[in-house]
């Protein structure tokens, strides 16, 4: 069994090592000041953090609903909440277009009433990233909520705390490890999102070309820039995983 495990390690490690080995260390300074690279870095940072914020604001209440409430259709709702995790990202992008594109279910009335269109905009990038990344937060936080000892919240209630106060001062601190893990996974996923972004938001340097898109397109023009961007994404992913220290999906 051991040697199969080693094969697995090799499969995972070798591509990453190849990436590090092929990094153009000599051109690092020049590439980091290249306009396209910087635009992609900046955009990725802004949109992934915005997606994280949106995912937290919407995902925690959803996780609460799934963990604490019983209602008809709950199983379906949980399946829907998790669906973007298993959906091929490009399919997610197409679905987003059909809903929020210029001719979309919601997008068309939105355009007609307000003139706002989401494709080809920074907001569109944030929407695409939130769509694919939020489930990671929901799943982790829901598991965390389920594993909480509810007696602490009950005690808070008997001591006169309102539900909101109990949530803020008792639940959230207890939830902190799961919340942190969920947020880290959510952010990493949003940062790495490609298929839904390029399909829904398109690709324009400075406005919608995030780092993964830049890697894909720069590969044909300037392979060194693509490798450098890949390395940065890899480094970020490693930092996130190390920070999580084994606390993957499922919390705790």
């Amino acid at each position: 069994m051991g040697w199969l495990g080693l094969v697995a390690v090799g499969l995972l490690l070798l591509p990453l090592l190849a990436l590090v080995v092929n990094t153009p260390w000599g051109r690092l300074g020049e590439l980091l000041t290249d306009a396209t690279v910087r635009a992609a870095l900046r955009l990725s940072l802004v949109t992934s953090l915005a997606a994280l914020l949106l995912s937290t604001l919407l995902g925690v209440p959803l996780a609460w609903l799934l963990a604490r409430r019983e209602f008809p259709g709950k199983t379906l709702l949980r399946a829907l909440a998790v669906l973007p995790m298993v959906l091929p990202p490009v399919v997610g992008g197409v679905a987003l277009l059909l809903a929020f594109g210029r001719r979309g279910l919601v997008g068309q009335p939105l355009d007609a009433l307000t003139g706002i269109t989401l494709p080809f905009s920074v907001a569109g990038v944030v929407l695409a990233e939130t769509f694919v990344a939020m489930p990671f937060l929901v799943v982790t936080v829901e598991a965390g909520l389920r594993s909480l000892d509810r007696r602490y919240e009950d005690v808070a209630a008997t001591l006169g705390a309102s539900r909101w106060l109990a949530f803020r001062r008792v639940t959230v601190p207890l939830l902190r490890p799961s919340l942190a893990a969920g947020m880290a996974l959510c952010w990493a996923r949003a940062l790495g999102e490609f298929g839904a972004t390029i399909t829904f938001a398109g690709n324009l340097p400075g406005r919608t070309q995030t780092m993964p898109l830049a890697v894909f397109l720069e590969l044909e023009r300037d392979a060194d820039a693509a490798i450098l961007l890949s390395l940065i994404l890899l480094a970020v992913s490693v930092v996130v995983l190390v920070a999580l220290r084994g606390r993957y999906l499922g919390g705790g």
Partner: protein
Amino acid sequence: MRRRHLAAVALCALLVSACGGPGRQAVAGAGSSPRPAAPSGVVTVFAAASLTDAFQAAGRRFEQANPGVEVVLNLASSSTLATQIVAGAPADVFASADRAQMDAVANAGLVTGGPTDFARNRLQIAVEAGNPRQVTGLDDLARDDLTVVLAADAVPAGEYARAALDAQDIDVSPASLEPDVRAVLARVAMGEADAGIVYASDIAAAGGDVIGVPIPAEQNVAAVYPIATLVDAPNPDVADAFVAFVTSGAGAAVLTDAGFAAP
């Protein structure tokens, strides 16, 4: 423990056998007297995205004329394909939408037969059927109220489009730079973009959703498509046969049907 090991070995064997292609070439000539074997086996053709319909049709004709042959198409922007070939992707034939990408492959020493120019194409502006935004020419693409998409700069369609626009000094701010020309077409077809610059052959393939606004010859660019067989071709005989077919009268007829012009 033993059974698991066996299962692992069986799985590996299955994966390895699924990868193999060369074995199929042995079919031709098996048991027959020594004469030149008819082309057979799999021929892998890397073709520009704009050649989608033309080469699907050409592939079918070629397979009909040569039973025992299977044409496998890898369709993407020529720049993506050139990158893949230079990185070692196993291909028999490369058909590019411009000379620059073919040169990139040739400069890497990977071209053996050719390149031969086999078709020409022209640019057109793709708009929704009915032309609701009333686009009449390249000048209109600079309008603020239009959402215009182009192919990315490294993609031949994007380069040709930029060349045409720059020659007329037209300043277009595209909403998106798509990874290949068919993606540009799709944006217009879906109604996400008002206009995009594609090839005349793409309009021919587009069906009812999209029509083309012609670009006059003096403003247009002539896209030249070269084809070549590659050095490390897994099936060089069929590769040569396929290129011969494409450059023949029969191949030219297929290309003309698809909206291309003679080379």
